[in-house]
């Protein structure tokens, strides 16, 4: 199953395919709560529901050339709304939230991996 990123949304022009992320992907709500207790013991909570937005984190191990492609994609659309179809087939609309995006050399790779190296990158994505 591919991991598909399309941008810019909704006038999608560029599509980048990535392999499925490694284990350890996560998703979480962005809502926050702040509790305050009054002198009589009453608890007051201040909530930022953030419209139920979700925040995701995926880590990819990709080839060197695919990393260069992903870097160009991020260069172009780091502030644009993108569409993500994740490895489960779910579609999400939002923004990339990393800053900075850090490509790390993971190791040597065979000839089947363009660039003969593998790189890892963590993408943080938040719904619009």
């Amino acid at each position: 199953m591919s991991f598909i990123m399309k941008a810019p949304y909704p006038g999608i022009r560029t599509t980048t395919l990535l392999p499925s992320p490694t284990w350890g992907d996560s998703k979480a709500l962005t809502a926050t709560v702040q509790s305050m207790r009054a002198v009589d013991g009453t608890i007051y909570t201040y909530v930022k529901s953030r419209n139920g937005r979700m925040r995701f984190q995926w880590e990819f191990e990709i080839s060197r050339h695919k990393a260069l492609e992903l870097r160009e994609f991020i260069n172009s659309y780091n502030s644009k709304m993108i569409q993500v179809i994740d490895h489960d087939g779910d579609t999400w609309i939002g923004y990339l939230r990393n800053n900075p995006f850090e490509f790390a050399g993971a190791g040597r790779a065979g000839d089947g991996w363009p660039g003969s190296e593998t790189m890892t990158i963590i993408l943080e994505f938040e719904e619009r």
Partner: protein
Amino acid sequence: MGVRASQVYTGVLGQAQQTGEVRVRRMYADVLVVTGAPGVHNVSASSTLNLTDQSVGWIDIQYTDHTLNLTDSVTVARNLPVGVSHTLNLISLGGRTLTGDATNNLTLNQVVVEFNYVADRSPVGNTLNLTQTVIANASLPATSSLNLTQNVVVQGPIKQSITQWLSISQHTSTPYRVFIEDELSLTQYLRSPIPITRSVSHTLNLVQNSPIGNVLDTLNLTDTVTFSFGFEITSNLTMTDNVSVEGLWVRTVEQALEIGHALTWYEDTPCTRKQYTPFQGENTINTDVDPPPTQLIDPQGSTSDRFSLYTPPLGVRTSEVIIRAPELDNRDRNAYSRVNRETRGGYLTVFADPNWPRVRTLAVTIVGLTEAQIDELQTFLQDTVGQMIGLTDWEGRLWQGFITNPNEVATQDGKCRWTVTLEFEGEMLDVQQPDGSDGSTLNLTHTVTVVKV
């Protein structure tokens, strides 16, 4: 004390005995003759006349005719209230299934001659009501021709007033298209033998309500005052047209609508998950960013086990440190300037200007260095701290920037094994020379093709 003398005469001429034209004529005269007597003040002269013609029965053609002349004349020698009045009711009926004809011709003339007394007023008034009703299955015109003439001749500087109040109402109940026209001509002429204040005015209100068709008012007002010195001429015109139309309305709706399209495509294969294959479609939506290049711009050059730092970044190098290539956990950090905002509705918006700065940082860890190499490296860092230096990475790419951590600790991991981590912030130069040259060599190639004709 009064004396009354009366005479009654009734005559009947002819009687219908057979088919043909039959005329029935009655003449009636009642003459009251009042002979004056000394000291008598109440004098009245009245005529009461009832004429009824009726033709019924088997007569095919009916024709009734009244000819009536009423003349009242009162002559008094003194200034006493004198009233002269005529009350006349004419009813003409015509009908049946044939074309009916109902005509009333009435001429009223009242002449009052008064002596010239100061503040004396002589009212002259005609009150005339004409009602015509036509009930038929076909179109028949109903026309009222009304001529009102009022003439006051006054000798003396007294107030003159002539008023004509005329109301014309036309109504039809037919559900089909109808035409209603009111033609009204008002002419007022005032003549005075002496130069007193005169005023000629017209007040005209036209109100037309039509559920179907056009509403049109054509109004010509002409006021003319001819006199030896200035007078004011004023025309006040108020026109109100109400049109209520139930039917088709031709409406025009215009919207400035921009419609664009976007087309993208991709081919999901194991190779496209590894190769540099950004699938580019097209769209007509203008964006402020350039899409990723379809071809890899900075392909991986010839890998080398060398990693050099030098100064100046371009040109002949005056100082250079060459060490071994870094470990595989090298980092390529790409930081962008963006503005993140959250709307009241909880939506996330991100904005970045393409011209805002972007920071690219290389973080490398180099192991297995000797102490001499560490000393040489630290000397180079000390000499170039905060300055722009050149860097050639293990892929032969040229960079220009500066070292952000000159105080990084170099650690001795073992005998003759030192480890150091460097962070370099800069940008890749376009003069990349994958063949390993320094980029200061310029090669120009001229190709001339001569075609002999």
